[in-house]
């Protein structure tokens, strides 16, 4: 495992490996995200993409390897600590807090950075009122960006799918991250929604000065917005490069379409 000293790197992953019993889900995964990158991670079903996300965010403990955020190792940290350090994520199957309102969903994400203490809330000090008011205003502003302000008092479970996706992205951004991991944001969306989603991702990337890593099945999304792409198959990275290079890579075509397909196309 060679040591990479890259100062502009926000997220460095080296030799990340995860075994579930005897099954190797991720094998020696390397990746470096520089500040402002918009990278994609693709691969067939079961390639280990979501496992990589779970390893980065601390939901799984890696068997081996190193994850560094701003040149600090975050392996062994609790998931909530990793989020507080600046990595936020969304989930493949939307995981909103279904019985809470949209506003509460977003406000929960601010919890780590809340401006008042526990005793402030118990004794309802003036500070509580001030901070809570500022919090609601900030959350509403946020919902405004995602055009969700009209539905802030709806329960999250009552929202249509596309809005749930937007709430989830808004909630992840409210954690104030500098690295955002999006797990199949376009899953289950129709082509029109996908175009909107791509614009939205571009927009938040520029607006919040984010580094984004994206898992996606929809080639249109990945090819459209990602600057560089890694392709995984059976837990290993089989190709890296720009969208154009990936499209022409015979190994990628083989992984998706099977052996021999590369020669045909």
């Amino acid at each position, binding site marked *: 495992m060679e040591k990479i000293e890259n100062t502009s790197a926000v997220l460095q992953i080296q030799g990340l490996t995860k075994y579930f019993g005897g099954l190797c889900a991720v094998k020696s995964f390397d990746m470096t995200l520089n500040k402002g990158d918009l990278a994609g991670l693709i691969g067939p079903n079961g390639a280990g993409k979501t496992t990589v996300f779970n390893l980065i965010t601390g939901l799984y403990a890696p068997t081996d390897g190193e994850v560094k955020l701003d040149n600090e190792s975050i392996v062994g940290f*609790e998931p909530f600590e990793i989020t507080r350090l600046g990595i936020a994520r969304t989930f493949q199957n939307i995981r909103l807090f279904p019985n*809470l309102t949209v506003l509460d969903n977003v406000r929960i994400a601010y919890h780590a950075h809340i401006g008042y203490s526990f005793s402030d*809330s118990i004794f309802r000090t003036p500070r509580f009122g001030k901070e809570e008011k500022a919090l609601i205003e900030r959350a509403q502003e946020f919902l405004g960006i995602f055009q969700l302000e009209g539905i802030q008092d709806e329960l999250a479970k009552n929202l249509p799918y596309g809005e749930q996706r937007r709430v989830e992205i808004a909630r992840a951004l409210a954690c104030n991250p500098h690295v955002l991991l999006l797990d199949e944001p376009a899953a289950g969306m129709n082509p029109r929604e996908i175009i909107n989603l791509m614009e939205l991702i571009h927009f938040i990337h520029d607006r919040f000065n984010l580094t984004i890593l994206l898992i996606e099945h929809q080639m249109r999304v990945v090819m459209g917005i990602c600057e560089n792409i890694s392709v995984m198959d059976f837990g290993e990275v089989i190709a890296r490069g720009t969208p154009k290079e990936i499209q022409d890579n015979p190994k990628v075509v083989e992984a998706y379409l099977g052996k021999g397909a590369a020669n045909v196309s």
Partner: protein
Amino acid sequence: MGIGFIFGSLLKIGALLGYLYGLLWVMGHPKKWVKIVGVIAAFGIIQLALTDFGGFKILNNFDQGLLFQACAMTMVALGLNLIYGFNGQFSLGQWGFYGIGAYCAADITFRWVNGDSRGLLVVGLGTILAGLAIWGIGRLLKRFRGIPVLSSFTFYIIGVLVAGGAAVLLGNLINPLLAPLLGTVAAPGVLNSGVAMQVVFFFAVIFSGVFAAEVSFLFGLPVLSLGSDYFGIATLGFTIVVNTLMVNSDTILPFPEMKGGRGMIGIPKLTTWFWAFFFLVLVIILLRNLVRSSTGRAIMSVREDETAAKAMGIDIAGNKLLAFVIGSFFAGIGGAVYAHYIGFLSPGTFDFMLGFNPLIIVVFGGLGSITGTIAASFGWIFFLEGLLRVLLSQLGTEAPTWRFVLYPITLLLLMLIRPQGLLGNVEWGFLKSEKFGLGKKREPKPTTDIPAASS
């Protein structure tokens, strides 16, 4: 009797619910002076109803008993609602903490009136020192990463035991100094009458609440890391252990005054309407302030989706423990209020079968609804203990037992018709979430450029 009694009882229940609505409304009034005057008025109304006007009382002694019982039950149920309704941890341990609070407070005041200040001193110093020990050890352990739960649990146990030992030593040292001031049962001293007794009672209630909270901290620390069902079973075990300790309190525990299975008698009946009301309002305010804050939202997010909560930077274990500890604190306070109203404690009262009562109340009133729990507690006590018990006893001596057939049926029907509980998510007045004048924005913005999904 007959129709008149039923009508009167139903009227009483209705009036009580109206009273609770009024109380919560006035507590939520934006103007401060209206709040204070309103709460005092709410206290006064019941106080008047309990006052004896030359042989006539609007609420008779039987009703008064029910009222205090309902207040105690509300506190226990509110604690459980925090644990189960808001935090989603299915707990059957609430009844054990209720018992701990009851016995602890009863022991303090019982000893006090018998000229022994050690009860208050040891429990008071013990809870304070143990609290400090827990806080200090917590700070210390935070500096290290990846300490297993059981290791930190060992540190906490050692810290609390040392604190407890120190409290016992100090208590035995200070006690002789206070003994002359306390006097004996026959000749009560300065500290054993009037205002001083009320102060002692106040501290007894608070300390027993804190004591229950600290026990729940030590118990919850290792046990809360279990999954939800296993946690439920472990807490059931806790209630049974506590009950067994009560039965054997004079043999295996060094508390002869608790008299084991025969029941503790001679507890001073210090719970007046003032104290019942005071602690009820205190618990309601504490719970509402907790739930309607960022911490409260974090607690609710744990119930909704643990994985998502983790990904939102929320400390799952810490928030579970917090909810559990505060819920047990409420149970301890409820137990203390109950003990000083009834004046007699028997381990049978804290049997785990009866421990399902607060659970039923919480589900009945609506999980995660504070209003629902309050209304259901009062309704439950007055309907079941007040109306049905009297009504059924008209039909024969064995008939009151039928209420344990009637209420499960009611519960079954309710679960079929309204699974979200009687009140669902409705909150009254004070308990509504605050908007800070920033409610829903009125002007609807056209959302044409990002269309809603066509699901």
